[in-house]
């Protein structure tokens, strides 16, 4: 931990947050928000949270920015002109924000010191994870072992939350019949655009390697930063790259809507299915050590490692399908005809 670096990155983060709120153009706000996310990612690497930083780089800086772009593309990029009579509500908002800040500043005196290794948060539960993960599960990356094994129940429902979010976006936006679409506004068109050979060629060359890297991230999450969430988001982002550089239709050709929703289901089912398999084998739900009865040539410790790999694959499939589905729905306003 280098406090000079910490300080400068935090200062830049505050500047970016101010600029995002104050800027008048929504596209600029989305880009500055992407820069904000990248600075956040630097800050977390600096604090030792590499997995969080990786997630932020793929999710916050990558997919969130693209989603903001898609939403701005479908609506309008200009923020409306300031009107009189809003001064009172702004003053109230300022007072509310300042009051919250005051309460937090008062509470700040009771916080444990920053970067103190002997705070209550670091003394009760986490020492067990730190000392026992290699012994229990043979997984050196503690974040993966806590995520997928010790707190596997939690992660299963997080995956279910992502899945529900994807379903909610489809339920809100999707218009299946042609006659339901007459009231949709035409998207804000930046430019018509002609097929650009350079971009298409490079995107075509890069996409297989991006997907290979995503699979590496999923499979190597036991030993390095990464895992199902990050790998799934990168897989989804590779399809989004195809959709942007080529055509909307090409992604639908590879990954139709039916397949997309089906894959989301399959991912969550793989996770829950491994849990139920453990139940059938006579252990607790998501207790992978009993999988050694099914998997050949594994003892109980390696079975936990392999079980984690299985659920990471399920998470990656679900997250990939949901990210693609959310993007396609937002960018085409639920029409699935043309996009960015």
């Amino acid at each position, binding site marked *: 931990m280098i406090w000079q670096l910490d300080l400068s990155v935090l200062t830049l983060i505050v500047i970016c947050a101010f600029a995002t709120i104050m800027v008048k153009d929504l596209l600029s706000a989305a880009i500055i928000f992407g820069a904000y996310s990248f600075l956040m990612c630097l800050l977390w690497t600096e604090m030792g949270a590499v997995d969080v930083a990786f997630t932020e780089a793929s999710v916050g800086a990558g997919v969130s920015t693209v989603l903001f772009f898609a939403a701005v593309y479908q609506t309008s990029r200009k923020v409306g002109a300031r009107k009189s009579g809003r001064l009172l509500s702004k003053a109230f908002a300022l007072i509310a924000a300042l009051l919250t800040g005051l309460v937090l500043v008062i509470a700040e005196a009771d916080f444990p010191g920053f970067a103190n290794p002997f705070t209550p948060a670091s003394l009760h539960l986490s020492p067990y994870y730190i000392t026992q993960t290699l012994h229990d599960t043979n997984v050196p990356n503690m974040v993966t072992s806590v995520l997928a094994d010790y707190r596997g129940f939690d992660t299963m429902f997080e995956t279910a939350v992502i899945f529900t979010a994807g379903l909610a976006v489809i339920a809100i936006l999707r218009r299946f019949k042609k006659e339901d679409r007459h009231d949709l506004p035409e998207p804000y068109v*930046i*430019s*018509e655009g002609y097929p650009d050979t*350079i971009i298409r060629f*490079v995107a075509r*060359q*890069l996409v297989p390697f991006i997907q290979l890297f995503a699979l590496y991230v999923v499979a190597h999450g036991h030993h390095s930063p990464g895992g199902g969430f990050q790998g799934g988001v990168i897989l989804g982002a590779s399809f989004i790259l195809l959709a942007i550089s080529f055509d909307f239709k090409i992604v639908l050709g590879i990954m139709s809507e039916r397949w997309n929703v089906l894959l989301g289901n399959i991912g969550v089912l793989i996770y829950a299915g491994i849990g139920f398999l453990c139940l059938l084998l006579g252990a607790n739900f998501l207790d992978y050590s009993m999988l050694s009865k099914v998997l050949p040539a594994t003892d109980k410790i390696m079975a936990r490692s392999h079980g984690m790999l299985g659920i990471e694959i399920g998470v990656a499939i679900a997250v990939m399908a949901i990210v693609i589905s959310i993007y396609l729905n937002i960018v085409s306003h639920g029409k699935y005809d043309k996009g960015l």
Partner: protein
Amino acid sequence: MTLVVILLTLTGLVFFFATTIGILRFPDFYSRMHAAGKGDTLSSLIILLALVLYNFHDINLANLLVAIKILLIVVFIFMASPTATHAIIDAGYEASIKPWMKKPEEES
């Protein structure tokens, strides 16, 4: 070895500095993107090469693997960054942004 690493990092930082000045001071969209695209790519490549060398303080299999991974990142940046710059400039051209010219009275 350490000296080479320091020299490479400093060179990369100089290029980054020039890129930043270019983005801030150039007169129009196209020349600013020119500074961003070229300087950014080159300085990232140089700093990553410095990292590869720094990694070789003692040569064994693990260090070699890490070095190969960093070199793969270098290849990725070398392909992706100029393409991104091209895409942005292309979008600007299609949106018919006028390039900066010298004023007529200065030419004569």
